[in-house]
C-alpha cells in the first residue's frame, strides 16, 4: 500500500492565456466585421419601420430584450468560469466547448420547470413581481448608448431617466418579498428596499457631478464631451473618487457581494426569491445580470468615454470596457465577505453620502473658479 496524494490538474496557465487572447481577438474581429457589412441594403426596411412609430418602438424593445437575454446567458457563463478560475476549479465544462452552452441548458430547464405559486402567497403580487423587476431594467437599457447611433431611444434627459427608472425595481423586489408570504423573503425584501433606496442617493449625487462637468443630461452628449480625454483622465482628482463611489453604489444597486444582503444565501436562504422557481425565477436572474451590465455600462458612459476609442468600431469598444468593469465586479464578489445590515447602511449614510456631497461641492467650486 502506498500513499496517494491528490495531484493538482496539470494546466499550462501560459498556454491558456495565449489561447484566450487569440480567441478574444478573433471574436472582436468577427464582431467588428459586423459593422462593415452592407447594412445600407436594409435601408428600405428601416425607412418603412421609421415611418411607423409603433412598429419602431416594438422592434426597439424586441432588440433590447433579445440583447438582454443573450448577454445574460453569456455573463452567467462568464461569471461561473471566472469563479472557477478564482477558486482553482474548472467551472462548467460539459455542455458545449468549455461549458459554453451550460447556461442555455439551464435556461431550457427553467422554461420546462413547473410554475409553482405557494398556496398562501399573495397571488397578484407574487405573479407581477418578477416583471416589476425586469421591465425597469429593459427600459433603462433603452437609453444606454452603445454608440452614437446604437441607442434605443436618445433624448435630452436620458441620464435622469436611467437613474429614476431603475429605482422602480425596488418596488418589485418588495412585492416579491411580501407576496411570497415567506419570512425569509420578507426580510430579504425589506433589506433590498432599504439598501436600494439608500445607495441611490450617493449614486445620484456622483452622477450629478459628472452632469455638471458635461453640462448636459443626455448620455450620448456626455460621451461626446469626453472626445478629447475620458472624464476619469481629464479630472482625476474629482472623477477618480467619483468613480469609486459610483462603483460601490452600483455593487449595492445590483445586489452583489459585499452588498448581497437581500439574497444572502447563508442567512436568508434565497432572500426575496426563495419561493420563486422556473421562469419567474429566471426573470429575477435576467434582471440581475442585465442590471449588472447596465450599471457597468453607465459607469463606462460617465467615466470611461463610452464608445470612444481608436481603431475598433464604437459598440465593440463599449462592450469591451463594460466587460472589464464587470470582471472587476466579479473579482470583488468572489473575494469579499458580506457586510451586516447596519454596517451596510452606515457605510452608505456615514461615508458615501458625505463624500459624494463633498465631491459635488468641489465640482461646483471647480466649475466656478476654473
Amino acid at each position, binding site marked *: 500500500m502506498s500513499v496517494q496524494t*491528490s495531484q493538482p490538474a496539470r494546466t499550462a496557465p501560459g498556454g491558456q492565456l495565449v489561447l484566450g487572447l487569440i480567441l478574444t481577438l478573433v471574436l472582436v474581429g468577427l464582431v467588428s466585421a459586423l459593422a462593415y457589412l452592407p447594412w445600407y441594403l436594409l435601408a428600405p426596411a428601416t425607412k418603412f419601420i421609421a415611418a411607423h412609430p409603433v412598429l419602431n418602438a416594438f422592434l426597439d424593445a424586441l432588440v433590447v430584450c433579445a440583447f438582454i437575454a443573450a448577454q445574460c446567458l453569456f455573463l452567467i457563463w462568464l461569471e461561473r468560469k471566472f469563479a472557477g478560475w478564482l477558486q482553482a476549479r474548472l467551472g462548467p465544462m460539459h455542455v458545449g466547448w468549455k461549458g459554453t452552452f451550460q447556461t442555455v441548458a439551464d435556461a431550457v430547464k427553467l422554461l420546462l420547470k413547473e410554475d409553482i405559486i405557494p398556496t398562501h402567497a399573495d397571488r397578484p403580487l407574487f405573479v407581477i413581481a418578477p416583471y416589476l423587476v425586469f421591465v425597469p431594467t429593459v427600459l433603462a437599457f433603452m437609453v444606454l448608448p452603445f454608440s452614437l447611433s446604437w441607442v434605443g431611444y436618445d433624448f435630452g434627459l436620458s441620464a435622469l431617466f436611467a437613474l429614476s427608472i431603475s429605482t422602480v425595481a425596488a418596488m418589485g423586489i418588495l412585492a416579491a418579498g411580501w407576496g411570497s408570504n415567506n419570512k425569509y423573503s420578507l426580510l430579504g425584501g425589506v433589506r433590498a428596499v432599504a439598501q436600494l433606496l439608500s445607495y441611490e442617493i450617493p449614486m445620484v449625487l456622483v452622477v450629478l457631478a459628472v452632469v455638471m462637468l458635461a453640462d448636459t443630461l443626455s448620455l450620448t452628449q456626455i460621451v461626446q464631451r469626453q472626445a478629447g480625454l475620458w472624464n476619469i483622465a481629464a479630472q482625476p482628482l474629482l472623477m477618480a473618487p467619483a468613480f469609486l463611489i459610483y462603483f460601490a453604489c452600483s455593487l449595492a444597486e445590483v445586489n452583489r457581494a459585499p452588498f448581497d444582503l437581500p439574497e444572502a444565501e447563508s442567512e436568508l436562504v434565497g432572500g426575496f426569491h426563495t419561493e420563486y422557481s422556473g421562469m419567474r425565477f429566471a426573470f429575477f436572474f435576467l434582471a440581475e445580470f442585465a442590471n449588472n451590465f447596465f450599471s457597468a455600462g453607465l459607469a463606462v458612459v460617465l467615466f470611461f468615454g463610452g464608445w470612444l476609442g481608436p481603431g475598433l468600431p464604437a459598440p465593440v469598444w463599449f462592450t469591451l470596457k463594460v466587460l472589464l468593469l464587470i470582471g472587476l465586479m466579479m473579482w470583488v464578489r468572489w473575494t469579499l465577505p458580506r457586510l451586516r445590515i447596519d454596517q451596510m447602511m452606515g457605510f452608505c449614510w456615514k461615508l458615501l453620502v458625505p463624500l459624494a456631497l463633498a465631491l459635488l461641492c468641489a465640482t461646483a467650486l471647480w466649475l466656478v473658479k476654473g
Partner: protein
Amino acid sequence: MTLTDTEISSTGMRLNLGPQHPSTHGVLRLLVELDGEVIHSCRPMIGYLHRGLEKMFEARPYRQTIPFTDRLDYLASLNCNLAISQAIERLGGVEVPERAQYIRVLLCELNRIASHLVFLGTFASDLGATTVFLYSFREREKVIDLLEAMTGARLTYNYIRPGGVPEDLPEGFAEGVRAFLDEFPRALDENDRLLTGNGIFRARLEGVGVISPEMAIAHGASGPVIRGSGVPYDIRRIAPYEVYDRMEFHVPAFAEGDCLARYRVRIEEMRQSARIITQCLREMPEGEIMTKMPKIFKPPVGEAYSRTESPRGELSVMMVSDGTPNPARVHVRAPSFVHLSLLPALLPGTKIADVVAILGSFDTVLGEVDR
C-alpha cells in the same frame, strides 16, 4: 370596519432557522423571535439526528461500539474513536504499546487539521466569502488522502481500537505527511491573510458574540470556545493522555472572547497540530502496535472516565461495566451540545447575520449534539 377597529399588530416575528437552513451545519433548529433584524430570544431545538447511540453502545460487545463513534463527531471521528477506546482500556486495565500511542496522536492531530479546515471553509462561506471554502477544502483533501492511505476510509475511519491500532503506518506514509507539512503552513498563511486582515471580515466578527471567561466556565464551554475567551483550558495540557505529555506545543488563547478570537484560536491550533505531528514522526519508536485482548472481553465491574480534546472541545466518555461482555452504561459528554447552551444567552440583541457568525464560530457538529 372603521380605521379605529383595526389594530396594527406589532408583535415580533417568530422565525424557525432550520432544521433545513444553509448555515445551521446540520439539522439544528433555532427558534428565534425577531424584531425586524434584531433577535429578541433564541431557543435551540435539537434531536433531529438522534439515533440513540448511547443505548446502542450498551447493546453491543465493547469493541463493536467503535464504528458508532465515527458517527458522533463525523468531522473528527478518530478523536471519537480515541475517547471510547481509552474508556474501554481503562475499564479493562489494558496497556497500549508506545508506538500505537504515537500513531494515535499523529492521526488525531491530522484529523484535527482536517476538521479545522472544514471550519475555516464553512465559517468563511457563512460570512459570504465563498472562495475560501474551496481553498480550505483543497488543503483538507490532502489530509483526507493521507488518512485514507492509513485507514482505508475518508470520513468514518473506525481505526483507533481498544488496545492500540489495527495496522502500522503504510509504506511512504511518513514521507507523505512530511510533504504535506512542508506546504501546509504556506497555504494556511494564504487563507489567513485573505481573511484575517480583511476589513469586512473583522467588522463582522470583532465584538460579536462576546463570551466572558466567567460565562464560558459557568456554561462548561471547552475547546476553542473557552480558549477564545482567554482561558488556556486544553485537556491535552491539563490532563495529558497518550503521549501528549511528551509533545511540545503551545495552547493558544485570545482574551477578546468574540467570534474573531475563536477563529484565530483555530487557525493557531492548526499550526500547533502541525508541530505535534512533526514531533510524532521524529520520536516514534519501533515496536508493537496492538495489545492482545481476549476474544470475549469482559472487564471487571467498575467504571471508567476518559477525557480527550477533540477539535470541538472536551469530549469525554463515561463507561460502566457490570462484568458482562456489553457495557452497562455509556455516556458521551459532547462539547457541541454544551456550546449550544450558550446561544440563548448570547443571541438576544444581535442581528440575524450575527446568528450565522456566532453559530459558525462554535463549529457545532450535530451528530455529536444529538447522538
